[in-house]
């Protein structure tokens, strides 16, 4: 069948504008051929999930010693020459006016954030990302947490994560942070080879890595994650295996493995072409991914998301909010929030961000959605986020929200990939539905599919490795 001749399954639908009070029932209308009235009032989980008040907040602390060669995040480089050899506790970050001014601005933003929800539940997760949040003096972190707490409330058992880089904190600082409530550390190790760390412009070496691991452990942080990057320039499979081995030996409760993305405008982007030396070839790079998956799973980690592994009970609660398409606040330079159905990115430049905060205080800036959402957008968000997880796409909910017809079309487009093993199809007991059976089901009516197929997920690692290709196939179903 020709793609171009197939009729659109979705038509663009916009929920009627609602008053903020009502937005959470904005739409739950099926977008298939059957008359929508039948289900007009049947709110479903999927479409309402993200509509409630957020219970998560991302806080961006953009300061870094210097910019890593692969990095294209909104950061503010402080420079490190004068302080690089001083012990952590004596460094001047305490008094750096750039940090103080920024945090003051951040606090203003949090305070100016007026929500439009009836209830204001306490925050369950807070994530300090960066940048290098560990460069920010604890007393300023404290100020931020206090502001969040007074503005939204903070659950006593809230997960409060902070990204920390080796060489930017000592035991005392970490203890202080823990005293403030930080209970999850995400350690930016990236590699266990000095030459690789140097080649990607990291501000630390391997010795700082070991030191940092020691500090984290000594301080008794139970919930900590280690970040690693694969496919770095000059990285060999042996080096990668070594990094994974050493990572496993240091026993983090969580490991994030990122495949290097060569972004335009970064140093790497200017010098390297993906797949070409000194970057590993595509085949090697795929091998790295598979190796990580098998080694980490072998060591008792669950591969619960494309790039996340965790020991039991240590999934990152904050990140799960993202994958579940739930709403979250975001504060700080360039950060992206998702409230009221609106994904909003703050300005990436300090000057514009400052103006944004002022606008927010005047009531001139709008970051909160009013419930007017494009259903296609929601559907594609859910697809792209669900398929990142090992849980996969829940077809029943999805079908209820967007129509069984769409589910059938997605199944149809994935049929060859179920056969090739890239996609796993599961019943409601999470038992795998074999490809011949799946083939038969797809030939059947929508109801039959619903009865027998509950989840579609990408197979680890073959499906995860091709996630873009596979997800974009489903996108094609949503927006033909």
């Amino acid at each position: 069948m020709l793609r171009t001749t197939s009729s659109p399954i979705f038509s663009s639908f916009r929920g009627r504008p609602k008053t903020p009070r009502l937005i959470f029932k904005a739409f739950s209308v099926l977008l298939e051929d059957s008359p929508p009235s039948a289900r007009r009032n049947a709110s479903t989980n999927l479409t309402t999930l993200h509509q409630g008040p957020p219970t998560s907040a991302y806080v961006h602390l953009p300061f870094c010693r210097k910019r890593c060669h692969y990095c294209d995040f909104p950061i503010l480089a402080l420079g490190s020459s004068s302080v690089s050899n001083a012990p952590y506790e004596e460094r001047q970050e305490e008094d750096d006016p750039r940090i103080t001014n920024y945090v003051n601005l951040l606090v203003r933003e949090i305070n100016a954030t007026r929500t439009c929800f009836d209830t204001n539940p306490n925050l369950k997760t807070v994530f300090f990302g960066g940048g290098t949040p560990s460069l920010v003096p604890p007393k300023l972190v404290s100020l931020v947490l206090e502001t969040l707490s007074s503005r939204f409330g903070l659950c006593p058992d809230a997960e409060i994560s902070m990204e920390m880089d080796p060489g930017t904190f000592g035991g005392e600082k970490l203890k202080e942070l823990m005293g403030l409530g930080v209970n999850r550390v995400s350690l930016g190790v990236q590699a266990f080879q000095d030459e690789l760390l140097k080649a990607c412009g990291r501000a630390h070496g391997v010795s700082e890595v070991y030191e940092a691991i020691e500090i984290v452990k000594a301080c008794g942080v139970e919930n900590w994650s280690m970040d690693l990057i694969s496919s770095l320039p000059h990285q060999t499979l042996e080096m990668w295996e070594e990094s994974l081995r050493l990572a496993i030996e240091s026993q983090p409760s969580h490991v994030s493995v990122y495949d290097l993305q060569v972004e335009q405008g970064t140093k790497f982007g200017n010098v390297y072409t993906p797949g070409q030396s000194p970057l590993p070839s595509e085949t090697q790079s795929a091998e790295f991914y598979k190796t990580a998956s098998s080694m980490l799973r072998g060591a008792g980690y669950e591969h619960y998301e494309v790039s996340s592994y965790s020991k039991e009970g240590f999934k990152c609660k904050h990140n799960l909010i993202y994958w579940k398409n739930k709403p979250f606040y975001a504060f700080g330079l360039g950060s992206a929030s998702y409230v009221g159905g609106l994904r909003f990115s703050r300005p990436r430049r300090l000057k514009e961000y400052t103006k944004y905060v002022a606008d927010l205080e005047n009531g001139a800036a709008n970051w909160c959605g009013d419930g007017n959402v494009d259903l296609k957008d929601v559907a594609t968000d859910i697809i792209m986020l669900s398929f990142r997880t090992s849980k996969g796409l829940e077809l029943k909910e999805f079908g209820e929200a967007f129509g069984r017809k769409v589910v059938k079309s997605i199944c149809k487009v994935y049929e060859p990939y179920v056969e090739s093993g890239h996609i796993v199809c599961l019943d409601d007991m999470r038992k795998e539905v074999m490809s011949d059976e799946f083939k038969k089901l797809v030939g059947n009516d929508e109801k039959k599919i619903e009865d027998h197929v509950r989840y579609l997920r990408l197979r680890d690692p073959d499906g995860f490795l091709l996630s873009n290709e596979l997800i974009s196939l489903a996108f094609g179903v949503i927006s033909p």
Partner: protein
Amino acid sequence: MAMAYAMDLSPPTFFLSPTPSSLRRLSSFPVSTFPRHSNRRLQILCQATAGTQPQSQSNLSDSNSKLAARSGQDRLLKVPISKIRNFSIIAHIDHGKSTLADKLLQVTGTVQNRDMKEQFLDNMDLERERGITIKLQAARMRYVYEDTPYCLNLIDTPGHVDFSYEVSRSLAACEGALLVVDASQGVEAQTLANVYLALENNLEIIPVVNKIDLPGAEPEQVLREIEEVIGLDCSKAILCSAKEGIGITEILNAIVERIPPPPETAEKPFRALIFDSYYDAYRGVIVYFRVIDGKVKKGDRILFMASGKDYFADEIGVLSPNQIQVDELYAGEVGYISASIRSVADARVGDTITNFSRKAESSLPGYEEATPMVFCGLFPVDADQFPDLRDALEKLQLNDAALKFEPETSSAMGFGFRCGFLGLLHMEIVQERLEREYNLNLITTAPSVVYKVHTVNGDTTMCSNPSLLPQPGLRKSVEEPYVKIELLTPKDYIGALMELAQDRRGEFKEMKYIAENRASLLYELPLAEMVGDFFDQLKSRTKGYASMEYSVIGYRESDLIKLDILINAELVEPLSTIVHRDKAYSVGRALTQKLKELIPRQMFKVPIQACIGSKVIASEALSAIRKDVLAKCYGGDISRKKKLLKKQAAGKKRMKAIGRVDVPQEAFMAVLKLEKEVL
């Protein structure tokens, strides 16, 4: 170099069959869109010229120009048949036909000097943009020679000699022709072909050597060439420079003195020869004709003898050069009829017009049906444009009786049309018009010719679509059309051209030197070998100096096979071609390699094969994508990632699915282009 290239750019003729006159209009309208074929046709501004005062801006004397203008304004006055002269101009592109015609109009006062200066010589872009130019199809001029007024009718021949049927009909409407040859270029192949057509029609030919004012002019040598190559007596040849106005009067005098008047047949039943027709959106088809016998009056009921359609002549008139209504035209005169005719197919070039109530006994000789010789599939890139494409083709057909089309479905390209054309130029013009005027985005399959297939059960079928070629077991033999091709070239390039002709399965027939430095090569080769880039190759291998002419000589049996392309074991029908067995391997290799370059890698390994029947003769494999994963959705910011995924999805949408493989449209287009080149 640019000049040399431009000198001889008329494309080759690809057919021996009739050509719709309307094509000339097709080809002349978007002239600038075909720089390759830039044939500057006579263009005259269509606007009221009455009442404007002639101004002496030319190098003609004041009194001359006034006298000419006066007689020019009397040009509607009737003269006896014996004082009518009908002629055309035969010239190679850029040898000065347009300039000479302009000058004749100017000197006879048919077009005012001022208009010539200010409007006619203006650049074409402007004229075209304003949509105010008309093409000169014929021009009636009044010329006073030895105190006797004469009526001279210049009948234009199509610039592209491709449309040789049309040329022959235009020439059949004349009693004489000016043969214009560039004093520095000499005789070209197409000029030659047209002169032969003129001689067949018993035309009095007046050799004219133009551009004698140019530094490189060698009129003596050119005259010798005309005598040797064509065998014309050049003792009374005229040397002129149309640009400088030298020799114009001599030419006019020669037309009166040497070209015979039309026969006195005004009393016979009305018969007129159509030499051109075009579709006017407001008035229907306008027919240009030469009255051979009898007369026609406004309001007469007329009958088109070949199409059998009859109409009332709402309006008759002469072209001078814009349309001017008259009440009556009689034998020997040239004019137009507007009769609310719906389609040019009803009044085709070569058809005979007669009087409905006093029919002529027989039609004029020489009429031929249009037979498409070159076929290709046209598919809209966007399937939604299919109805638009159909409408556009239907509209074009109103003005182009030779355009044939029928719906075609292809697994890869979706819905489209298989279209038949008279030749490659015709095909190009139609495609260009569809894309430009109708805003359609089209994919064209490689052009193919019509094969004659003898099946084992004794049937003979004509096949123009590779996918419809009967299975090998069912066919006894396949014949393909052959052409006789004549190449004129400076002797330095003889080797290069022989190599080209050999490559294209050419069979050498003859070589002769037509001048010290120039040779003529005669080959017979399959038409299929010419529908590709033969002409482009001819030009590039001879730095633009060679010219060519060809005619179809009939069908011959060849060892032809159908070459299929399989992507991931799925047959891709639009890429199938019919090739000679000897070429199958190289074509197969080229196609599979190109496809490997163009098809994006998939999530699995994809074999790409070229096959004859079930036998694989060339094969490539596309390796599978190993990794395509966006590792991080940092800080929950999914917008950028989503954008990338959307782009990726959109990219897939632009592709056509061949089984499980997504093949981008560009791959088809590039391969089809390659097919045009390698076949």
